């Protein structure tokens, strides 16, 4: 067999993305994460509307329910390292690791975009990608969720109140001030994606 039999990279990416989307669609924990995030967002948006009718209730609700998108992102990554050793099946099927990382990121962006469509903001996609990056680096759902939630819900607000000028560089500014935080909302997931892909490339499976 020769290298000429190798399909083109775009065709290969489409096949892998298809497989990754299939994986996301058949995992019960992801369905639960999506469903609970949805229910909580609706409930809190209702409460936020009562509390302050002038403010955007969905954005207010997302201040908390972004946690659901983070968990969703984490689980898409850590499913590979849970019992059963799925990561080996994945790598045997798609052995080129950068290609696999690209397929996984694409599939997650598609899934998160569908989930976040009704909120009318792309910000949760960024949160989900950060979650996935942490999941790939830490390979443990509990640790990644704890780190991510501490980052978004505790460290960021504290940092903001201490150094207001840092707002441009915090990953969660984009939620309430999209104009100011857009760059950070893209750069944080990008940096984590690069870090996660490199560690994935060099660590043993």
């Amino acid at each position, binding site marked *: 067999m020769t290298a000429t039999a190798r399909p083109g990279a775009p065709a290969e990416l489409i096949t892998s993305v298809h*497989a990754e989307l299939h994986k996301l669609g058949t995992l019960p924990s992801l369905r639960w994460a999506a469903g609970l995030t949805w229910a909580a967002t609706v409930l809190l948006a209702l409460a936020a509307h009562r509390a302050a009718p002038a403010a955007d209730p969905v954005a207010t609700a997302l201040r908390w329910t972004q946690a659901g998108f983070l968990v969703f992102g984490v689980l898409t990554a850590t499913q590979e390292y849970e*019992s059963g050793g799925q990561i080996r099946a994945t790598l045997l099927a798609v052995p080129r690791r950068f290609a696999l990382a690209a397929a996984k990121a694409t599939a997650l962006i598609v899934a998160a975009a569908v989930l976040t469509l009704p909120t009318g903001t792309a910000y949760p996609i960024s949160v989900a990608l950060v979650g996935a990056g942490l999941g790939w680096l830490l390979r443990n759902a509990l640790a990644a969720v704890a780190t991510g939630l501490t980052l978004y819900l505790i460290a960021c607000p504290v940092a903001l109140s201490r150094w207001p000028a840092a707002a441009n560089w915090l990953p969660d500014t984009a939620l309430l001030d999209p104009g100011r935080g857009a760059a950070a909302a893209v750069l944080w997931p990008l940096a984590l994606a690069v870090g996660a892909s490199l560690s994935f490339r060099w660590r043993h499976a």
Partner: protein
Amino acid sequence: MIRIDRVSRPRILHEVSFEARPGRVTGFLGPNGAGKTSTVRILLGLDRASTGTATINSQPYAALPRPLTVVGALLDGSGAHRARTARAHLRWLAASNALPRARVGEVLETVGLTEAAGRRAGRFSLGMSRRLGLAAALLGDPPVLVLDEPFNGLDPAGILWMREFLSRCAAEGRTVLLSSHLLDFPVDDVVVINRGRVAAHGTLAEVQGDHGSLEDAFLALTGAASW
């Protein structure tokens, strides 16, 4: 055709070289911890060798286009997430290598899991997990099979079935590489590995040599006869 060429990893493997040819079952034998699994993982691109090359049809695993159509591998565990059904697991694998969906039903039939296809992999017994792993290996109808300790966790009927299945695969012209710490299965060629070095390599008759049986040869080669 599998070729392992002077593969080394510090403290684990020392210049391991051997071949597995089409139409033959090659037994890759050695005591626990001899380096069998490391060699297999390097062959499949899951680990890296510090020096040496491991190729399948002259290409490293990571360069194979649609690898499931070239190599089927069975490692420990089923490779399925415990919350996914057997069918869903095989479907995403099929999608990842652009294999027809009908293959999923066919391989489930082959390994006798048709009835259990809708059950979650986490609810499978050890033997069923191994069968699911084998189903995944067969999905792309590959000419090369690499099986790490395939008899682990099988009941007597399962072991019998696996032995016949492997002989049939070789008879169909496939390359079968099978690592095991057991010796009780039909092999054509034998590679004995001990403490990260190949201790013997050849046809069954060659390796057996003057020893009465493969067992005696194995024990003499690996120095495990003392007990």
